[in-house]
């Protein structure tokens, strides 16, 4: 891949890019399909049900059927909706979620762009998703959507700050924003140990960024019915759904890379297992945690959400930066 | 014999025990009473006539009689009741000539040892009188009744023997009473609109005349009878346990507003002996305020509020409760059907808000003073008030 990137653009290389992108998209879609399936299964098991079991063996084709249904549905747009924005919103939400995957190193060899500022790229792009959500909320011409959109804006912007702050510690430790370097730097010990405070803040903020329980206020179905996507149906709704899960994929990958040592094995002696297996394993644990939390937690209230971000998470993240800075300086012999 | 009454509070238990011991005496007293009553009745009889006409066909509830009426009625009835054994036979015949419903009634008469519980209170009381004499003679009946009483098993645990005895006596009376009760029913049906049968009517008319007075009298008696039968016999006028409260309310309100604001006051024997007042419509708001604010009344809780259509008038029924005094009070305010108006008590008890709206919605009673009086359950454009007896659904096409 690296060699391809460094070549001069030509028809051949462009074709390669497209094929690779489609491949990644297929992988991601496959993941989304089965993430939804497993989410339903896991939550079902936790709730003493058996989850989807009617379509295909063990219900494995349930999500496929759901997606097919969504794609075949009539495209409904509310009469007084803002036509252009209404169409644009799902794309705005989905595109960045997919674009952030470009910098993810899934293993030593499987990766795409190797940006020096991979982490920054991720954070910057993921911030765009919120635009899609606000646009959707506004363009639907629905009060629930609007409230959901605004909640989402407030929440995502607020939680982005502690999210970014919490990874600064890692950047300080590693001295690089390149995701590959960050993984390589964890050969001795995973970042979750020295950066535990950062990890705690990050995982909470990530949850809020993903709009998932207990921070699912923008779509709180018991309050706002469905929040920003209440007026969406058919494939547009599918785009939002996709964005949510792809974003979860991205966040899972990022956490694995930042805190769990990416494709590195638990112990060097287990090196014979391919890196990608380790990656998937660690990644799956995070995804399972998502489902688990969703089966257990109630939802926060909007004012508590904001004060939690600004009064708890941000100070803790800042303290973490300070602590890391002090430790790093000490190690470098500044004191 | 309501649910509550069956649970033996300590006092009741004691009373029951005492009664059992004094059973023989009680019965003797009863006989004396009857003799006395029959004497008195002959004096009061003339004044009794108009009343029975009122009470028989419309089945006028006791609730609407003044205490004096009640007393008079009782006396008259007592006398007549003695002569009723004979009338019972007649009534049976009348009943047989009636609709199937009536037939069922007479069937019921035939079943032995029919417990008191099946009879309406007034029948019970009436029956009791008639039965008293018979009961003494019927040793066998008493035995049967005893069994019945045991299955009923209410106060089994305390002094079972004495209790059972007392009950057996009561039941024996009740059994004989059944005959009289059936007669009462038959008579009332004949008087009422249920049976269209002219024949039956004619027959029943005779019975009804004799009967109605008795029924009315009996109603008065049920006041005591609801609790336990024996005390009723010992002291026929023993007031309800809530009588002092009623007296208190009446006197407090009369002191503040004068006698005339209370149109009627009585203990509702059918409704767990709740003191019930009928308040003058015009002064209702002031009285309501007083009910809530007065130290001794302090009815701070409005349990229920609703309206009833009695065809000649509308009534609003309030059920208050005082958590301070642990006492209930029912208040009724009457209003005309044409211009129904009852002052709103929404600003006194906020809980009246929706209840008044509901009453307005379904019965069309207006509550001047209510801040937001509009329909609550029905759509805003609904025509008519469904709970009124003359309501016909509005049909746009007609």
């Amino acid at each position, binding site marked *: 891949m690296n060699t391809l990137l460094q070549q001069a653009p030509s028809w051949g290389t462009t074709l390669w890019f497209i094929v690779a992108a489609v491949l990644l998209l297929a992988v991601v879609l496959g993941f989304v399909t089965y993430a939804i399936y497993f989410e339903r299964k896991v939550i079902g098991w*936790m*709730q*003493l049900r058996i989850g989807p079991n009617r379509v295909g063996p063990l219900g494995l084709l349930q999500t496929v059927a759901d997606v097919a249904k969504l794609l075949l549905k009539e495209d409904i747009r509310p009469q007084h909706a803002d036509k252009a924005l209404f169409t644009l919103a799902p794309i705005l939400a989905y595109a960045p979620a997919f674009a952030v995957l470009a910098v993810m190193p899934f293993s030593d060899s499987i990766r795409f762009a190797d940006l020096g500022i991979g982490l920054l790229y991720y954070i910057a792009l993921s911030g765009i998703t919120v635009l899609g959500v606000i646009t959707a909320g506004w363009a639907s011409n629905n009060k629930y959507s609007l*409230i959901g959109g605004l909640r989402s804006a407030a929440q995502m912007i607020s939680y982005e700050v502690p999210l970014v702050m919490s990874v600064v510690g890692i950047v300080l430790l590693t001295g690089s924003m390149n995701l590959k370097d960050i993984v390589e730097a964890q050969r001795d010990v995973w970042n979750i140990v020295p950066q535990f405070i950062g990890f705690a803040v990050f995982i909470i903020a990530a949850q809020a960024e993903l709009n998932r329980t207990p921070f699912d206020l923008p779509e709180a*179905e*018991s*309050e706002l019915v469905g929040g920003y996507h209440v007026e969406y149906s058919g494939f547009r709704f599918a785009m939002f759904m996709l964005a949510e899960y792809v974003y979860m994929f991205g966040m899972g990958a990022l956490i694995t890379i930042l805190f769990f040592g990416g494709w590195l094995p638990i112990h060097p002696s287990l090196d014979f297992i391919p890196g990608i297996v380790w990656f998937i394993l660690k990644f799956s644990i995070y995804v399972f945690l998502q489902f688990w939390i*969703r089966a*257990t*937690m*109630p*939802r*926060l209230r*909007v004012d*508590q959400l904001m004060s939690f971000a600004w009064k708890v998470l941000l100070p803790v993240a800042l303290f973490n930066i300070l602590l890391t800075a002090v430790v790093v300086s000490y190690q470098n012999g500044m004191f | 014999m309501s*649910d509550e009454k069956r*649970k033996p509070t300590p006092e009741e238990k004691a009373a029951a025990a005492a009664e059992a011991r004094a059973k023989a005496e009680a019965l003797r007293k009863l006989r004396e009473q009857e003799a006395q009553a029959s004497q008195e009745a002959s004096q009061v009889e003339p004044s009794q006539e108009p009343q029975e006409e009122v009470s028989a066909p419309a*089945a*006028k*509830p006791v*609730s609407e009689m003044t205490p004096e009426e009640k007393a008079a009625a009782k006396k008259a009835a007592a006398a007549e009741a003695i002569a009723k054994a004979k009338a019972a036979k007649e009534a049976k015949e009348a009943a047989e000539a009636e609709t199937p419903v009536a037939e*069922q*009634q007479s069937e*019921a008469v035939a079943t032995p040892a029919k*417990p*008191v*519980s*099946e*009879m*309406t*209170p007034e029948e019970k009381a009436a029956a009791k009188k008639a039965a008293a004499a018979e009961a003494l003679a019927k040793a066998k009946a008493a035995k049967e009744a005893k069994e*019945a009483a045991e*299955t009923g098993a209410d106060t089994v645990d305390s002094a079972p023997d004495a209790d059972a005895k007392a009950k057996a006596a009561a039941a024996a009376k009740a059994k004989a009473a059944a005959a009289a009760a059936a007669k009462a029913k038959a008579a*009332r049906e004949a008087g*009422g609109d249920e049976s269209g049968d002219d024949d039956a009517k004619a027959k029943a008319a005779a019975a009804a005349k004799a009967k109605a007075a008795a029924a009315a009298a009996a109603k008065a008696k049920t006041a005591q009878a*609801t609790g336990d039968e024996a005390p009723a016999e010992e002291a026929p006028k023993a007031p309800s346990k809530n009588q002092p409260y009623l007296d208190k309310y009446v006197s407090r309100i009369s002191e503040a507003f004068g006698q005339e604001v209370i149109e009627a006051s009585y203990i*509702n*024997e*059918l*409704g767990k002996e709740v003191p019930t007042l009928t308040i003058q419509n015009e002064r209702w708001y002031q009285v309501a305020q007083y009910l809530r604010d007065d130290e001794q009344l302090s009815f701070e*809780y409005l*349990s*229920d509020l*609703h309206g*009833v259509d009695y065809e000649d008038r509308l009534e609003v*029924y309030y*059920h208050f409760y005082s*958590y301070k005094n*642990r006492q209930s009070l029912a208040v009724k305010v009457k209003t005309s059907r044409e211009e129904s108006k009852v002052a709103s008590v929404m600003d006194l*008890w*906020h*809980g009246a808000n*929706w209840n008044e709206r509901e009453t307005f919605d*379904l019965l069309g009673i207006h509550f001047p003073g209510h801040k937001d009086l*509009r329909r*609550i*359950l029905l*759509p805003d454009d609904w025509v008519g008030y*469904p*709970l009124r007896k003359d309501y016909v659904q509005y049909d746009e096409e007609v």
Partner: protein
Amino acid sequence: MNHNILTTHVDTSSETGLRTEEMLLNVGPQHPSTHGVFRLVVKIDGETIKEAIPVMGYLHRGTEKLAENLTYTQIIPYTDRMDYVSAMTNNYVLCHAVETMMGLEIPERAQFLRLIAMELNRVASHLVWWGTFLLDIGAMGPFLYAFRDRETILDLFNELCGARMTFNYMRVGGVKWDAPPGWIDKAKEFVQYMKKELNNYHQLVTGNEIFINRLIGIGKFDTKTALDYSLSGVMLRSTGVKWDLRKDEPYCIYDRFEFDVPTATEGDCMARYHLRMAEIEQSLRILEQALEQFPSEGEVMGKVPRVIRPPAGETYVRIESPRGEIGCYIASQGKDKPWRLKFRRPSFTNLQILPKLLQGENLSNMVAILGSIDIVLGEVDC
């Protein structure tokens, strides 16, 4: 609806110079958290509720009007459909009213069956409340756990009277069915199971910090307000009034059993949550005693005339339903059909305080407050 709420306020003179506008939000009648077809028109400024107007009647079936043309026996199935979550208490209140008027005597065994049925139903009702309340708060797990355990109760009812929710079980003078063989043991088993399971519920939810923070201090009112608004049941007890009709005006055979009336003084959603949970415990306690003392034999139907004709007059009885004080008023003219039948529905009365509680609250609190009142729309609209 000609109400002032329809005029929203546009604030152009704010200090920031920004033009803000109040918004009317129609919550319901199809909304996941209104527990049925209840509608709330709320005027919101941002997410703060300025005013809330409840609109109801979407489930109004005219039970009271229908009852005027039905015999008392025929009305009983209709009461099942009022508070469909706790139909046993509804059955009971009607039968109790008629029995009070007629002075009927209920056989011992029937009394026990009634009490057991009502208390089981109270547990079932509170379980439904617990599940749906947490669903409102955003946790979906508890709902399914609660419904699993409620299912056991419904199965018990199904065995007892052949229906899971619309029981039509009680009759004037007794109950329709005796307990089938083995039923009492099954009920005993359930009570023991539920006692243990209740701890799990607490483990799952009660200690949850998010949950606690969402409820503490929300929807608060004091005793005076509660009485003024005619609140009853848990709503009243959460303000410190120790008042339970089972204890204070005992009906059925409640005075034979030992149980406490849990009260709290905070008057907020959290207090109401704890009270309902404590009430499940107390109900189980009553059930334990009642099932132990259940008479081994006896009639389940008292001696009742073939045609039920309460004497002319009127009565008003009230009992403790899971939601509060349910009352039944009957005006009789001595016929086999009531002249006027009126139910005092606790959900309807308790709901009155909602607009007051919602004022100035956040939209998220709206569902918590509404949930904590515990309404059943079949009963509100009657």
